[in-house]
């Protein structure tokens, strides 16, 4: 086809920007990369050091505390299955990455969500950015992560945070905006400052919604951490990835089941937590 309109070199711009960023921020990214990979390694090593039965029991206790014996038994059976399938160490690696990514997502997403709820201008910037972050194919984040942080779990976590953070931001903002106007009016009528209103009324009432957002963030983290095996993240994702490469259907299915079990356990536990913070 004969184009009379020149093509917009979006890819070149993006590459140029990325190149510039990589060199300009190389000191920062290198430092971050080292720190985060040290954390991941240390946490993973620590958890792998603990005998699996202890970890299983600890999760069982947690499940029993937040819900009851049904969830506790389910949780312990699930982890026991993973242990039996000899997938314990990859599971720990995946779990550590999920936990770290989720922590980072909350640390960044919660304040952003609050800011978006309280200022319409912030919302106008944050909302489309989130839409883009979530609709972009998740693999795309993996590519720029590599020049920043190199192959490995740090890049995986970086991509995961970008992919998994939007629900926390969105539902935090939604939760605050959904607080009945009567409540905020009552708070105002008693002369609250903006911060008092936020911490005494808006956040407590938004907490169930925020927890639902965090639950989604955890689920998205898990799915992304698995995909991130393609850039050397390790963990359960690597099991799937190598099974694909060697066309080992059985091994792939086994790893898939392991991921599903971990996902269900994490989901049920966080759901129970969000149910417990429901205002009466």
């Amino acid at each position, binding site marked *: 086809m004969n184009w009379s309109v020149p093509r917009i070199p979006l890819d070149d711009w993006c590459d140029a920007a990325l190149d510039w960023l990589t060199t300009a921020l190389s000191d920062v990214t290198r430092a971050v990369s080292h720190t985060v990979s040290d954390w991941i390694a240390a946490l993973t090593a620590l958890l792998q050091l603990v005998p699996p039965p202890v970890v299983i029991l600890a999760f069982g206790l947690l499940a029993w505390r937040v819900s009851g014996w049904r969830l506790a038994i389910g949780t312990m059976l699930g982890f026991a299955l993973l242990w039996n399938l000899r997938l314990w160490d990859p599971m720990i690696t995946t779990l550590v990455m999920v936990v770290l990514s989720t922590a980072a997502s909350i640390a960044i997403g919660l304040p952003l969500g609050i800011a978006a709820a309280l200022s319409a201008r912030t919302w106008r910037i944050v909302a489309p950015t989130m839409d883009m972050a979530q609709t972009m194919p998740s693999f795309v984040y993996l590519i720029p992560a590599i020049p920043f942080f190199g192959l490995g779990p740090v890049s995986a976590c970086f991509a995961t945070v970008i992919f998994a953070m939007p629900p926390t931001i969105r539902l935090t903002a939604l939760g605050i905006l959904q607080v*009945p106007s*009567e*409540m905020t*009016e*009552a*708070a*105002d*009528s*008693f*002369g*609250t*400052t903006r911060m*008092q209103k936020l911490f*005494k*009324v808006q956040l*407590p*009432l938004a907490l169930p919604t925020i927890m639902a957002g965090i639950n989604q963030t955890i689920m998205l983290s898990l799915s992304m951490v698995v995909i991130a095996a393609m850039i050397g993240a390790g963990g359960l994702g690597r099991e799937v990835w190598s099974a694909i490469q060697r066309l080992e259907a059985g091994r792939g299915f086994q790893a898939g089941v392991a991921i599903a079990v971990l996902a269900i356990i994490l989901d049920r536990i966080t759901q129970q937590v969000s149910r417990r913070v429901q*205002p*009466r």
Partner: protein
Amino acid sequence: MTPLAPVNFEIGPGSTPATAAPVDTRPALIEVQDVSKMFGDRGAEALAMLAAGEDRAAVLARTGTAVGLNHVSFDVAEGEILVVMGLSGSGKSTMLRCLNRLIEPSSGTIRVRGADVTAMAPGVLREFRRKTFGMVFQHFALFPHRTILGNVEFGLEVQGMAKPARRDSAMRAIELVGLKGWDARYPSELSGGMKQRAGLARALAADAAVLLMDEAFSALDPLIRRDMQQELVELQRRLRKTIVFVSHDLDEAIALGGRIVLMKDGAIAQAGTAEAILANPATPYVARFVEHIDVASVLKVGTLTAVPPCVLRPGDDPAAAADRMEAMGCDSALAINAAGRLLGRADLSALRRVPAGQGVDRAVQPCARVPASASVKQALPVVAEEAEPVAVVDDADRLRGTIDRVGIINALARQSRRPAQEATAP
């Protein structure tokens, strides 16, 4: 020695009901002057149109701006219950929220104890809300994540009061509204009436001078609503709070017993006591508004009194008095002492039997009486029992006049005729 009437006590102008509201001499706590509120982007333009005499519909059509309040002015006296009335959309809730600036008025001034609320900077306003206003909401607006105690102490907590002190104050407020023992419960565990008691306690805890109550009892069952109204009146009598009460219910306004500001389309249609509004509706709209009201429960006996033709006073000669009564066609007469206090009633025959040289008081028997502040409804059973006109007395038991069945029937007939006529007038 002679005259039985005229008498030396004040009696109102016969059976004509009082029309003018009693002049309130208490100092104004809140002064609302010319307050308007426009909802929309072109408020200034809308204000100019209103000033030029255009109506709400025209303003809305041309500027897309809804007129919430249209040049509203009224005063609230210290310690009174003022009821702001009107149908939904009349601007009554908007008016209430302008007082503490939950809604920002577009123009006009609101002064509380002389301080201009409309000109306050955010920090000053916040402090003012904490110290001056307690607000009660239609749907309670209790914080579901806090206990009743946590809700009631909210205002004090926001003020930064130390925990033990604010607990004490909150517990006192909880006791005041009759919720003792419920402080550790959550709002969801309480019935509607109890929730609103908690809402009231929350507004009272900070000991603010003014209570703003937005349809506070409208969401309650009729029976509980009536209880709450009575309790509020009693609380007010005890605590001397100034209350601005928004309601769409005229019966409620009458039960609360204060002055009424009746609003329509964002402007004041009429202001005054329930009796005054009922007696003299300013517009056909007001007349229709008060049409269904049970006149008997609003009309005060004191406004319907007639001058008794025969009254016995100390020192009257029984025989002369009896002659006089006979001449005037009285079978009996009320007797008062020198201070005007009602002593009782004396029959003509009893007067005749009084031995010469003795006073009229020998013939006086105790008699029924009704207070002037009682409603016609309250007085009816007494009046129905008595053959003679019943004595009406003031707080100090001084005779103010009499009331009889005919007078009551006439007054009720007059009241129920008037609004119907005006409403059907073109």
